[in-house]
């Protein structure tokens, strides 16, 4: 990818203000990470820089954002600078008062994590009894405060057979979009992938089913995105870039201001307060590798490579240490003849 083909800055910045969390979820990428936090004055400087660069969306994650006392001040400031702010929360701390403060701060929308329509399964996955009920309550509080909500569901073996039940949960609790996230084998996600991650063929079947369900609904948006879907016959992605979007449309900021390509790729490529942002965005050797991958293994000669560009760079990197390796979720067979059949 040539520099002149790149957007002038990321469209979205996923920002982990802290890795502190009140949960210990089975798939968490950041559970074991610890870094210093930025003081509010420096966080404001980061917001200023992102606004000046033309970043459109900031999504707070981490870490549980609602543990941060200054979350509302930071958000109100970012909104005043013209940024659209969203966050992902487990919902535990999102009571009626928090919902009112969220509305006042100007959050564009709030995503609540719910990983199963079965309360017991969700609580087990999130390692927190009662978390399902509180997540549902948080959606109701958001609706009451007139804040747009979404639901995020990480697809894994536990919910593979009943994830469609999430549609009614969204409808009943006013969420406008259901995000289906693919499983990432980073951090605890790697530790637990043996019993939680799907097999490649299960991923292929899941995406086929998800597309059918998505296209059958008119009252709820189901959103999912995975570059390996390019291997589905007849599938046409409507994304702005091919392959992983990380490092092309988005970046991740760590709690201490470190910049990484994505939250699931624990490689720091600069610091937003110390390094020239344009130099990191345009010239980072790590980003360059992600933007200009070389097909290896079964990707070499595969008909889908032109569109999937090897799939998710984070998964390939987590499993092999190379962005060029085939996505471990890809269901296309190793044999090139089977691949094109």
């Amino acid at each position: 990818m040539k520099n002149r083909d790149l957007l002038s800055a990321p469209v979205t910045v996923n920002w982990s203000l802290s890795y502190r969390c009140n949960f210990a979820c089975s798939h968490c990428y950041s559970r074991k990470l610890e870094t210093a936090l930025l003081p509010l004055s420096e966080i404001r400087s980061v917001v200023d820089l992102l606004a000046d660069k033309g970043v459109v969306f900031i999504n707070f994650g981490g870490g549980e954002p609602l543990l941060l006392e200054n979350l509302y001040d930071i958000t109100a400031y970012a909104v005043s600078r013209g940024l659209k702010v969203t966050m992902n929360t487990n919902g535990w701390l999102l009571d009626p008062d928090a919902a009112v403060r969220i509305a006042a701060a100007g959050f564009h929308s709030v995503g609540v994590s719910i990983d199963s329509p079965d309360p017991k399964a969700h609580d087990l996955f999130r390692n927190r009894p009662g978390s399902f009920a509180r997540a549902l309550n948080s959606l109701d509080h958001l609706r009451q405060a007139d804040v747009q909500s979404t639901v995020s569901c990480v697809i894994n073996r536990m919910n593979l057979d009943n994830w469609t039940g999430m549609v009614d949960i969204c409808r009943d609790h006013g969420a406008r979009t259901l995000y289906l996230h693919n499983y990432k084998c980073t951090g605890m996600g790697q530790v637990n992938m043996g019993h939680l991650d799907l097999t490649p063929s299960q991923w292929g079947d899941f995406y086929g089913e998800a597309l059918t369900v998505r296209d059958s609904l008119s009252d709820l948006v189901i959103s999912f995105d995975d570059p390996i879907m390019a291997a589905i016959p007849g599938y046409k992605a409507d994304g702005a870039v091919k392959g992983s979007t990380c490092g092309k449309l988005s970046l991740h900021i760590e709690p201490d201001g470190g910049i990484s390509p994505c939250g699931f790729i624990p490689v720091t490529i600069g610091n937003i307060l110390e390094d020239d942002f344009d130099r990191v965005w345009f010239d980072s050797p790590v980003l360059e590798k992600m933007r200009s991958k070389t097909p290896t293994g079964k990707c070499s000669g595969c008909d889908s490579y032109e569109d999937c560009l090897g799939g998710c760079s984070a998964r390939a990197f987590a499993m092999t240490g190379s962005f060029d390796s085939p996505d471990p979720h890809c269901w296309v067979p190793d044999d090139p003849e089977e691949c094109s059949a």
Partner: protein
Amino acid sequence: MKKLSRNPDVNWRVESHREAHVREVLEDPSRTGEDAEAVDVGTVTILAGGVMHQLNLLGGEIWKLCDGSLDRGSLAVRLLEMFDVDADTLKEDANAFIDEMMEKGLINEE
């Protein structure tokens, strides 16, 4: 006359790095071979309904001018100050672009 304005719910930005590159190519007579590629480069990004649109230099300038103060005629006059091309062709291209953007709900004319 009806004025043209951008849909206020649409997020957009100028791709300053790309725009600078395109202008550099178009203004440098020694790089005429790169013209065809340059005119297709997206210099304005529009994000609407979960879809990202890229506008080339002409489209991007039209988009920027749709601030509610100009009608089609006065917008064409402003464009002719920027682009050294045949007036009728430019008006035709601009009108086609505006019609397309109106169909997508990205530009209003009222």
